[in-house]
């Protein structure tokens, strides 16, 4: 019941799960298909730079993204943790980043100053999101947030919480009745003994 209620609160009525991580290492940031395509609903990716400079999000087939970043310094998001809302980051590579924006491998792209957002739909996976500055300059101190939502999860959690509450109620009633019976039996036993002693 407690767990169900907590998840109900955590998901909210929209049934949204959210994860975030901040990369301090210079280079590009990558969200692999092991995270991006592990759900059946669209994933909203938001990237925010602390320095307010340009940031670009783009999604490409995983083999293409891998080829583009083969020798570059990247921080890779390769796992998420729920309900903690955290993501695992792994730094790799040391090469400089080339300007990736002219390539034709990107299915979707978005660019903004300081922050930008991209909604990646499912069905064409495996795909990888690459976060860059939009040119060859390396990114530093960028926070990426992933969010996806399904109202069904909220109602499932609600049902779980309700079932938990009913079970807990039965358990409490059972416990209470046991105590009452025990007390009554004690009283009855005490009364009989006293009566017999008087006789």
């Amino acid at each position, binding site marked *: 019941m407690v767990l169900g209620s907590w998840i109900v609160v955590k998901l909210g009525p929209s049934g949204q799960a959210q994860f975030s991580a901040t990369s301090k290492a210079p280079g590009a940031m990558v969200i692999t298909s092991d995270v991006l395509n592990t759900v059946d609903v669209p994933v909203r990716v938001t990237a925010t730079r602390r320095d307010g400079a340009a940031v670009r999000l783009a999604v490409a087939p995983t083999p293409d993204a891998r080829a583009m970043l083969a020798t570059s310094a990247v921080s890779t998001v390769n796992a998420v943790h729920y309900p903690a809302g955290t993501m695992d980051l792994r730094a790799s590579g040391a090469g400089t980043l080339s300007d990736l924006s002219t390539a034709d491998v990107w299915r979707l792209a978005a660019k903004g100053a300081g922050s930008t957002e991209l909604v990646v739909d499912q069905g064409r996976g495996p795909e990888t999101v690459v976060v860059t500055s939009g040119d060859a300059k390396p990114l530093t101190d960028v926070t990426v947030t992933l969010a996806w939502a399904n109202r069904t999860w909220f109602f499932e959690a609600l049902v779980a919480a309700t079932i938990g509450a009913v*079970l807990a109620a039965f358990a409490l009633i059972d416990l209470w009745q046991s105590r009452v019976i025990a007390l009554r*039996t004690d009283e009855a036993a005490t009364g009989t003994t006293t009566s017999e002693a008087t006789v």
Partner: protein
Amino acid sequence: MTRRAVTSSEQTSSEQTSSEQTRRGHPGRSLARRIRVVAGSAMCAVMVTSVAGCGVGDSLVGIHAAPQAKADTAPLTVDQAKKILTRSFTAAYLGESTTGQAAKTALQTAYTTEGLRGVNGRSKLAKAQPAAAQSLLQAPHPKLLAVSRGFGFPRFILAQTVASGGGLPVLHLLTSPDAATPYRIATSVEMVPPAHVNPFNPLGQGSPLVTKNTGLAVDPAKLMSLYAAQMAFPAKPAGRSPFVADPFSSQIRTGAAGVAKAVAVQATFTQTHKVIPSSVYAVGQADGGGLVFGVIERTDHFAVKKGQSVKTVGNKAFVLLSGKKSVARSASITTLEFVVFSVPASAGKATLVAAREQLVAGSGS
């Protein structure tokens, strides 16, 4: 009294035992309660352990295993491919309709390899042959015919245009050699009437690039090589050709014979045709056949006879390309021949479906 007391004492002892049983519960009911408690505790333990672990936590928010890459899908969506076509054709048109550095940059954005050589040649010859009249890009809405299949390289996009004012349909092949390099036009070729192009696989599946030993009636590279060889002048003996006779190669052979005859007094004329290997692309079609693209470099060579001096002013194209108004020793003109064949699956002969030639260079001394 003592006996009675003893009896009372026994009775009391018996009821106390009964009372103890009741307090602890009836043996059957007690066992049921214990089972309930154990089951409930176990269920709670399992739930808590699962959530604290990862299984239930992940499944609560829909997380499952990531899908595997499919080899039989196109790496581009239709929208992506159409945007690439629009970008390339816009840049090509800008490049051909303007001048200076901007035009050069636009052409480099639009074209690649032999396509760029061809359009540069056409630009140089613009004074002799107005570019607008020669442009193959005056169709506003290209029709997307095919895109590559799978995630290997090189990749291609195949499109067709028909000029708004009518004219022959044009086949365009755009290629990308690697993930970092954008698609550019490698070939634009007018179709030869009454040729038609067989259907390709659905755009979502993509079409495979056909390489050696993949079921076509003739190997694409061998086809191009034999086709180039049979156009040589002076003619060389050729074996059984794997292609149907066509007017394009006939015109070239006839033209070469005419030139040789016209310059016979002043020069010796020879013509060679050499396939550019990297230009050969064979795109698989739905019926198992393939559409083979290739570029052949033709060299017209004039060896000026001793004591002769040939005025070339009459050949405006040669003057524009070479800067020579007369030659005393030799001259050569390089032309690119863009050709497209329809090759059947397993048996039969290839048919030329599109062809075009473009002067690209000239030199003389």
